């Protein structure tokens, strides 16, 4: 019972019932991290003292007969771009290597309010810009299934931490697939909520109109448990959405998928896909049909332009969001320059890695006077049409099914020198990001050599309950999500 391999739901129940103490749970998690993380490097930093102190406090409260929150005693990792007051948050960047958060992100506050125990910060692609966690200034994270493979990204550290059973739940963020794709690469389940569902206050911004705080867990049920605590309007985020009814209680009664119409967008399930990837998604569709769902073909014609639109919008917003790192008030400063402009240039050149610099330059260019209409404006039109495509598709179905990544997990270093090929790997995840829709990647199947594969469910805005329900029903009747890479 003290193994961190249990689900978050089971752990919280055990702690609340007194079958296990939060302290025991945290000690087990820390021990496992100590054993395996030196190889994996899922964490940038672990906070044992903070975690043990929080666990002791929860145990005292339990002993005093106090009511405990829904995540009582559950060790949770947070991505390095979420702020926790008093701790460092670097967003995988040299620029923020020594930055200490003066306040706590709303999403982390809600974790703490649910009595979860934050155990450390996980590695990520710098500012979320990457799909492999290789652009982190603190070195890459390894895939727990095979240390030669990337864990995906940018929330690669969080996905690896859950896959390695360091903790049953980890927060990530998803801008163009940064929760879903690493979840698929690491054989775990990842939820990107509707844009605005979870407050972005305290999330280091990459591309604000796309950024979503999401989570990675072994089961859809745990993700539902998390979403119920995390969702809801936040006075600290003017774009946050009002709360929706809790999902986790609905799952108990969900046994089959009768009446559910699953749309298969041919543009996301067609040619260009790796054969094993396509086969795994087909198998997931077939399993859903066995449980009563109906499969229908749908079309998202604008998807062909989604990657281009995504990179124009994301880079323009990134160039804007990262303008604040100028070496003046906080973050890395290269001193010695006599002139202000030289100081800022030197600080940004030293503080940002290559991928970040590339995206800032591209975004600055795309939003420059004279090019604005041609690039950013056109991308916004694509975005609007894509949203219309999704709305049209949802007239014929309840959820969409597609592979999460067009390719299985690949070796470290194999794609670093070809940014365009890397960006094309986001083709299947960016459409839902552009449309702001909730999407969940669940592990299903593997390549012949054992690499995990994942498929993604996408629902209309605000309908996280649908993707959670489908995944939950299928997880009830299967064990793909229980495949564990480490002893």
């Amino acid at each position, binding site marked *: 019972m003290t193994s961190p391999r249990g689900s978050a739901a089971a752990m919280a129940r055990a702690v609340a019932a007194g079958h296990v103490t939060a302290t025991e749970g945290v000690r087990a998690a820390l021990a496992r991290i100590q054993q395996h993380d030196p190889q994996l490097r899922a964490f940038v930093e672990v906070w044992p003292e903070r975690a043990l102190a929080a666990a002791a406090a929860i145990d005292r409260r339990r002993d005093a007969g106090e009511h405990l929150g829904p995540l009582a005693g559950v060790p949770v990792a947070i991505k390095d771009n979420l702020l926790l007051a008093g701790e460092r948050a670097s967003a995988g960047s040299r620029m923020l290597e020594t930055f200490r958060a003066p306040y706590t992100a709303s999403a982390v506050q809600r974790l703490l309010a649910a009595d979860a125990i934050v155990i450390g910060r996980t590695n990520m692609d710098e500012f979320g810009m990457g799909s492999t966690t290789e652009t982190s200034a603190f070195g890459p994270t390894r895939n727990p299934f095979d240390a030669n493979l990337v864990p995906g990204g940018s929330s690669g550290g969080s996905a690896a931490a859950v896959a390695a059973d360091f903790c049953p739940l980890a927060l990530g963020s998803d801008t163009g697939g940064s929760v879903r794709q690493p979840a698929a690469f690491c054989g775990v389940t990842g939820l990107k909520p509707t844009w605005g569902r979870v407050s972005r206050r305290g999330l280091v911004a990459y591309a604000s109109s796309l950024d979503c705080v999401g989570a990675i867990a072994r089961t859809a049920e745990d993700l539902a448990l998390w979403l119920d605590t995390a969702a809801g309007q936040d006075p600290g985020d003017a774009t946050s959405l009002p709360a929706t009814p809790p999902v986790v209680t609905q799952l108990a009664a969900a046994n089959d998928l009768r009446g559910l119409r699953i749309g298969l967008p041919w543009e996301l399930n067609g040619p260009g896909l790796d054969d094993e990837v396509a086969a795994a998604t087909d198998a997931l569709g077939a399993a859903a049909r066995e449980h009563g769902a109906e499969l229908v073909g749908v079309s998202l014609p604008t998807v062909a332009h989604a990657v281009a639109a995504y990179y124009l919008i994301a880079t323009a917003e990134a160039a804007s969001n990262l*303008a604040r790192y100028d070496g003046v008030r906080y973050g890395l400063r290269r001193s010695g320059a006599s002139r202000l402009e030289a100081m800022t240039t030197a600080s940004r050149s030293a503080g940002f890695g290559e991928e970040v610099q590339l995206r800032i330059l591209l975004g600055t260019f795309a939003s420059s006077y004279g090019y604005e209409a041609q690039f950013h404006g056109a991308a916004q039109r694509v975005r609007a049409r894509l949203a219309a495509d999704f709305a049209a598709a949802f007239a014929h179905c309840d959820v969409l099914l597609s592979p999460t990544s067009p390719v299985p997990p690949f070796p470290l270093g194999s794609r670093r020198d070809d940014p365009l090929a890397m960006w094309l790997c986001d083709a299947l995840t960016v459409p839902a990001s552009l449309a702001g829709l909730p999407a969940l990647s669940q592990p299903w199947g593997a390549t012949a050599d054992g690499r995990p594969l994942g498929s993604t469910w996408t629902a209309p805005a605000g309908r996280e309950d649908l993707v959670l329900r489908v995944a939950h029903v299928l997880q009830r009747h299967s064990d793909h999500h229980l495949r564990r890479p480490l002893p």
Partner: protein
Amino acid sequence: MNAWTTVIGLEVHVQLATASKLFSPAPVAALGEPNTRVHAIDLGLPGVLPLPNAQAIALAIRAALALGAEVQRRSVFARKHYFYPDLPKGYQISQYDEPLARGGSVSLGDGRSCRLHRLHVEEDAGKLTHTDAGTLVDLNRAGVPLVEIVGEPDLRTPAEAHAFLRELRHVLRFCGVSDCDMELGSLRCDANISVMPEGSAQFGAKVELKNLNSMKMVQRALEFEERRQTAVLAAGGRVATETRGWNDELGESRPLRSKEQAPDYRYLPDPDLPALIVGDDEVATARSALGELPVARAARYREHFALPAPDVEALCAERSIGDWFERVLAHGSAPKLAANWLVAEVLPAWRQRGGDLDAFPIAPDRLAELLALLAGGAITQVAARRVFAHLLDHGTTAATAMRELGLDRITDPEVLRPLVQAAIAALPEAAAAVRAGKPKALDALKGHVMRSTRGRADPAAVDALLAAALSGG
């Protein structure tokens, strides 16, 4: 010889009179130790998000209504990018292609007016102080709410530009939108000016003037620039499209940057802020908060109270003055008398003392009381002024002041008796008439006594003394 036409358009930034900043809870204050009125949001720390200040939006809507502009149901905040240490996020949150309001106008007097192009909401930047030791950054001002009001190029003389600013300031102060103090920077102005041959259909090359720190400076700079451009054109030259800075000490403008050096602000809709949707109810609330505009109030004072133009102007200079005036009227004073007293006594005394008119030591009802005494003949104009001065220093009632000043009624028979005797001696015919049973003649005798006491004699006591003196034979 060619004749030339000058074309001027102003861009005015006005600081909204809010308690806190546009997107953060930090307080707004003109003074304060550097960097003490700064929230994480103002610092642009990682992960912070702007939180729109409803009071600022309400004031901006009020400003738009006061200027007759059309409030847009939907407007969008946009990021305006440039690197400078006074701009913590590397961009300023402003509005670009979808501003809060469009249209409107500012009266220039004599039936002329200047149309407005647009009005939008934006945040202020911080302040830099250059010292020998280096440049110091103060972010107290960063994030303070502003509206930018962009005028159409309808102005034709520097004097009109001055009139535009005067009227704009008057209206916005009157409505409580801003204190519009150019010296303190709560009203700032950039001016665009070009010169073209008279009758031309096409404007000349536009020069933008900056560093205009007072209304007089605006006018002086425009006068200089008008002369400079006209001279260039008259000599057959071309005016460069550029931004120039005004140096008031030297009395000249100098180039700051050329058209080619104009920055590219890379405007981007701010994804952290939903579109600003202004509903009918918000406009209605702002309209009721707006109250009566100065033009309407002036018309009412002219037409209903038949007040002369200088009085109307003085009473409409600020909303608080007219409000105070109307409270005096509410206590029964005649409009003309009250207006005279405000203009001649109250306003000069208030200006000398400073502060809020509501805290003026003589409340409107006390002035009304004094004016009633004056109107009823109980006190002379001269005595009333003395009472007013006394009230100013001691803050009592008019009656107490009169007593303290010895201006109250004389009831003592020993004082009044000789005066009554003197009246009978001075008006023997009236005395005889009374004795002959004609009581109406008493009025003349009584009037004599009142005159000799400058109205202070108690009428009842005088009546008694007269009756006693004349009945006894």
